[in-house]
């Protein structure tokens, strides 16, 4: 069918709302969006090409730098993949410390995503509140690991540094502060009439379309799909994890899923701190030859590492599937269609929490 197109509207690659360069090409009639296409390739570095044939000690740091926002989960999945090949089991204390750091990373990523959304719909007050709360989370990450971003905390057989009792107490009081502040911000978000106008019923992604396009993460869970890889992870199972699902399938639902997951993360950290027993944090071990597909839940959805190692601990083959790949596609082909105004293009795109650095690597 031939469409009547007024304007082919490009958004990006440099845009005030985007953290990263990418271009959305929208075919519009007036302001109504008929179809959209996302053009990528501005930050392609070829990380998987560099990784091939290198020892795991180097690949570990490269894996972390696939994405700066969710660096802990890349470290987590890569290390657990080579551990599973070699039959190394982390010590019990280290397994819980991994969950604590991973959930802190998820909290700062979700707060950053919701900051971007609030900034995009021009609610700058709430955006700045969220960005300030994120600094509290970053302080806790720095307290435990020693770095704000790219901390390389997880190593085969354990973790790099221990959590002292007084640090655990500081972490607990910070979690209480985050819970109290965030419930206030969520009330602002839920009751704001203009926020509801810009968010409710905008960027609908039906359950059928999400299943067909293999949407993952909060984008899929906001459309009523029960898909969270953490429910298959042994440590998360021990902590009694169950995913958060909403049925509204619009921008509002995607942001609310992220807000609720921050509460879930503080709960998980609290139960991990309660379950933390004294013991060694490093088990040690040798990387052996083998190949594996290993997955876990990144802040944006399912993250898959497929790799082959040899007896010297080198990575022979590696392929990374990051969650933003299906999410950006489903955003362009389902969510952006029928957007009523050009101002909704950026807000719908940001609501799916795209990470271009992850997607292109």
């Amino acid at each position, binding site marked *: 069918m031939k469409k009547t197109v007024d304007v082919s509207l490009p958004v990006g690659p440099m845009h005030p709302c985007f*953290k990263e360069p990418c271009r959305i090409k929208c075919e519009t009639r007036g302001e109504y969006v008929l179809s959209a296409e996302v053009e990528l390739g501005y930050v392609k*570095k070829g990380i998987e090409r560099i990784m091939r044939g290198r020892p795991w000690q180097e690949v570990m740091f490269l894996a972390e730098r696939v994405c*700066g926002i969710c660096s802990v989960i890349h470290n987590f999945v890569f290390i657990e993949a080579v551990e599973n090949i070699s039959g190394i089991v982390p010590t019990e204390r280290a397994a819980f410390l991994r969950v604590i750091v991973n959930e802190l990373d998820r909290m700062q990523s979700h707060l950053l995503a919701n900051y971007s959304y609030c900034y995009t719909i021009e609610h700058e007050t709430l955006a*700045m509140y969220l960005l*300030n709360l994120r600094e509290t989370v970053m302080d806790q990450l720095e307290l435990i690991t020693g770095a704000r971003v790219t901390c390389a905390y997880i190593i085969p057989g354990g973790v790099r540094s221990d959590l002292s009792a007084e640090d655990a107490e500081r972490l607990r009081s910070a979690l209480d502060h985050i819970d109290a502040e965030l419930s206030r911000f969520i009330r602002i978000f839920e009751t704001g009439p203009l926020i509801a106008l810009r968010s409710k019923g905008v960027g609908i992604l039906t359950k059928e379309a999400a299943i067909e396009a293999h949407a993952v993460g909060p984008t899929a869970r906001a459309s009523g799909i029960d898909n969270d890889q953490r429910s298959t992870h042994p440590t998360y199972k021990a902590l009694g994890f169950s995913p958060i699902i909403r049925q509204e399938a619009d921008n509002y639902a995607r942001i609310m899923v992220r807000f609720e997951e921050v509460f879930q993360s503080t709960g998980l950290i609290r139960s991990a701190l309660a379950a933390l027993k004294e013991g060694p944090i490093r088990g040690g071990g040798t990387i052996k030859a083998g190949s594996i597909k290993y997955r876990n839940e990144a802040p944006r959805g399912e993250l898959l590492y497929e790799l082959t190692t040899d007896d010297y601990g080198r990575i022979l083959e590696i392929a990374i599937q990051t969650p933003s790949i299906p999410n950006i596609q489903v955003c362009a082909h389902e969510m952006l269609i029928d957007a009523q105004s050009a101002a909704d293009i950026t807000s719908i795109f940001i609501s799916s929490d795209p990470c271009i650095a992850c997607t292109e690597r």
Partner: protein
Amino acid sequence: MSMLQYLKNTVRSRSIHVAYVNVGSCNGCDIEILACLSPRYDIEQYGIYVHNNPREADVLLITGAFSSQWEDKLKPLWDKIPHPKVAVAIGNCPISGCVFNRPETLVDPPVSKHIPIAAEIPGCPPRPTEIISTILSLAPIIFKDYEETKK
């Protein structure tokens, strides 16, 4: 110093407009620039505004190890910025390529091959305070008495 120059110096010292461009970074440095906006660091109390629009920028912050897509795009973008202007490289990537500068890579560091870089902030990623202090210490050197020294 003429009166006009004095006025320009006064205005410029509290009005620094910043644009940032990601030429192949991992996002780590970008979110540290974003963290500068937060009320804890509060970049706007120093008169620095992040607009992300090259045409009204004074300072261009560059993150990333220069991927090939930007080869024909970064120079025109730099030319769009009105004088006086300055470029700051943030993180190890624009300086050396960091971990990405290995055989078989697709990036082509350093960025100083393409546009003039006035200051470099090493770190993977640098802290927000380092970014703010670099902009603040660089701006007076570049912008003070710009018209009179140019003659």
